[in-house]
């Protein structure tokens, strides 16, 4: 039995998840006030009604849109700033300490300022997602540019490569695996930033409905919505992780 489980870790994993769901089901049905928690079976059944709640699909779409835009901007800004900092000694010496300093600040402290500047609409959420997501990407790009083996640059130069060719065919591919690990961390950051901002204040996104379901003591729908968000996050993370393993295949 033990040997079978060792050879099929997926089965054991599934078992653990099932056990947790059963525990939750039992606790929710018989031991905990239904004002605060719903059993998973009921949450699952209620998913339909969550979607049927007026404006919830639009809110989900809006949050997804915020995530996508924030992630795209984080990648673009992260790559550009990362290259600027990583490719020049001057840029590295001057800006890297600043990047590290900013990265170290818990950004939740400046969320109100974002709301003040960008309003309570999607712009603030996107901006907050971008500032969370771009730092790990900057760091990854800088690392990816700098961990290049000098002999590869020398060898490219000896074969007549121009600066542009070196950037395109040596620096860029060397950076890719690092960039993807940065993008995975960046995706986690974007999710954190966007959802934090959503929950803090929201008029049309997911945050609005979570606070509404909370205030109405409707844990079934609240859990359903949170579940949908979690699924969204897992799917997005998985997408980037796939990209990462795909592009890291040459790593020796």
């Amino acid at each position, binding site marked *: 039995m033990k040997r079978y489980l060792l050879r099929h870790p997926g089965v054991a994993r599934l078992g653990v998840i099932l056990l947790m769901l059963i525990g939750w089901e039992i606790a929710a049905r018989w031991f905990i006030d239904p004002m605060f928690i719903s059993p998973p079976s009921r949450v699952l059944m209620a998913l339909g009604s969550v979607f049927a709640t007026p404006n919830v699909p639009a809110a989900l779409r809006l949050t997804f849109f915020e995530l996508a835009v924030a992630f795209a901007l984080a990648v673009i800004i992260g790559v550009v700033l990362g290259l600027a900092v990583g490719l020049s000694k001057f840029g590295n010496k001057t800006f890297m300490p600043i990047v590290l300093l900013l990265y170290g600040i818990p950004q939740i402290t400046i969320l109100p300022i974002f709301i003040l500047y960008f309003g309570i609409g999607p712009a603030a959420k996107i901006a907050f997602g971008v500032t969370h997501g771009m730092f790990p990407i900057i760091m990854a790009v800088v690392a990816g540019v700098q961990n290049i083996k000098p002999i590869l640059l020398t060898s490219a130069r000896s074969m007549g490569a121009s600066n542009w060719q070196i950037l395109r065919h040596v620096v860029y591919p060397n950076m890719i695996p690092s960039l993807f690990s940065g993008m995975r961390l960046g995706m986690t950051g974007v999710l954190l930033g966007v959802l934090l901002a959503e929950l803090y204040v929201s008029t049309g996104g997911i945050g609005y409905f979570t606070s509404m379901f909370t205030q109405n003591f409707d844990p079934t729908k609240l859990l359903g919505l949170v579940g949908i968000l979690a699924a969204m996050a897992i799917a997005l993370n998985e997408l980037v992780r796939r990209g990462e393993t795909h592009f890291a295949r040459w790593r*020796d």
Partner: protein
Amino acid sequence: MTQAATNTAISVRNVSHSFGEADEARHVKALLDTSLDVTRGELLCLIGPSGCGKSTLLNVMGGLIAPTTGTVMVGDKPVHGPMPNDIAFIFQENALFPWSTIHENMILGMSFQGVPKAERADRAQRALEAVGLDEFAGHYPSQLSGGMRQRAALARALSLETNILLMDEPFGALDEQTRMVLGEDLSVLLSRSKKTIVFVTHSLGEAVFLADRVAVFSARPGTIKEIITVDEPHPRKSAFMTSARFHQQRDQLYDLLHDEIRKSMAQSGKPKRAYEDQSSRAGPAA
């Protein structure tokens, strides 16, 4: 132009090179007033104690390092930077791009050099066949052994079809059996291609086995102390390696090198004071 000059592939004139500014702590005089003519079609080995400036001289010849003083000419052109159409490099370290297959590595090298697109695949195939790696064109460098990787690097250099190959301890990281076989292969390749090769090595046997001439370096700051000639036609057979002449020439090289290696080790040895420090520190503690 004189006959001698037209027969010279690379001419190095009074080249000195220092790393770092004169007032810096890590200022190193690597090469001192070195002059050398590499004859067309020969294989010239550079041998000397480690750190004596062999790689520096090779990189200066290939335009990868601009010397502090002195000049280098390739044919009738002064060297001011890489000359991909005349010179190809092979390094000790694996310099293949790890994200590309062997075939892609070769295509990329040729695109850097400016080979027309239509010719690249053909040339890659021929060069891979020449080093016996045609079956591994689709492999990534990490999937090959160290010896195969260096053969692939050789193929990439051959595909550039330059007249000159500069090789910096290309087999230095390989085990002795592999480097012997690769040495024989190189000798065969050489006799077919008529290329001019400058080959850095720290192996006396490799130098005598491969070279038409061996230039022996002095300890740092390096300069060429003596040049010996190995009169044996290419391709060289393994029988040459067991001949009396081979051993006699290797011993001659060893004699030339011996003193320089001692000097070079004295340069890098730790100052004696390190011992005194330790003993004085041990005193009060006990």
